[in-house]
């Protein structure tokens, strides 16, 4: 298998995530889509490390950090979501219009 195979899979995963983030009405869905985007990036990192810098492990380490960040992001995001849900009684993104001009 060549590098481009993995890259194509990664790109597809990214675009699916982007599509989800743009179209899901449910905020939980948006968060899930963002997790997909993170995974696409991780996949990219690992693939490049494997194919272009096979004698080092920096890509893997950075992937670990990204995972940590993603976990933190998910935890905080979901906590915020719960807080919003308690206050506004909705989880649909189009109802969050406090920033309306």
């Amino acid at each position: 298998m060549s590098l481009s195979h993995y890259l194509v899979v990664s790109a597809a995963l990214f675009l699916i995530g982007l599509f989800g983030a743009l179209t899901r009405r449910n905020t939980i869905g948006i968060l899930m889509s963002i997790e997909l985007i993170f995974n696409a990036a991780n996949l990219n990192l690992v693939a490049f490390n494997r194919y272009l810098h096979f004698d080092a492990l920096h890509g893997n380490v950075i992937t670990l950090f990204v995972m940590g960040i993603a976990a933190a992001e998910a935890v905080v995001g979901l906590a915020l979501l719960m807080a919003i849900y308690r206050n506004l009684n909705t989880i649909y993104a189009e109802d969050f219009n406090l920033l309306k001009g």
Partner: protein
Amino acid sequence: MEQIVFYSLSAVTLIAALGVVTMRNVLHSALMLGVALMGVAGLFAALGADFLFAGQIVIYVTGVAVLVLFVVMLAGRESDLHARQTNEKWPLAVAICAVIFFGFWRCIAPYAGTPTRTQPEPSTRAIGKLLLSDYALPFELISLILIAAMIGAILFSRGGSAAEDAP
């Protein structure tokens, strides 16, 4: 053999991902997310990143996905099952994705036919050494961020009563 593994894993991953963004029921979406993340974990394994494979399973599949499931069940409502789950701008989103994919394709094309040269070997020990030598500072920072996220999550999820209890 390698190709069968790759294509099957890719197919599982992408189909599950599509399920995540298209399922009407959020609970199903969350389950699909778990499947997609496991698929990515499989791809990591295929790439020889054994430690990351384990990490992906532990952090994502048993951490994040389960957390999402909890939230879905906490914030979900009966009416959600009958409401439309995508907004009206999806054709535009599709167009944007298509254009970006075109761009990606142009970037990916040069790497076609770049094979790997070595066999993968166990990387856990090496990663551990790196984390405690070259990456010691980012490692500590990540731990700080995680603690901050934990505190923040507790603060937010305690809700209104927390503000009242606060001195």
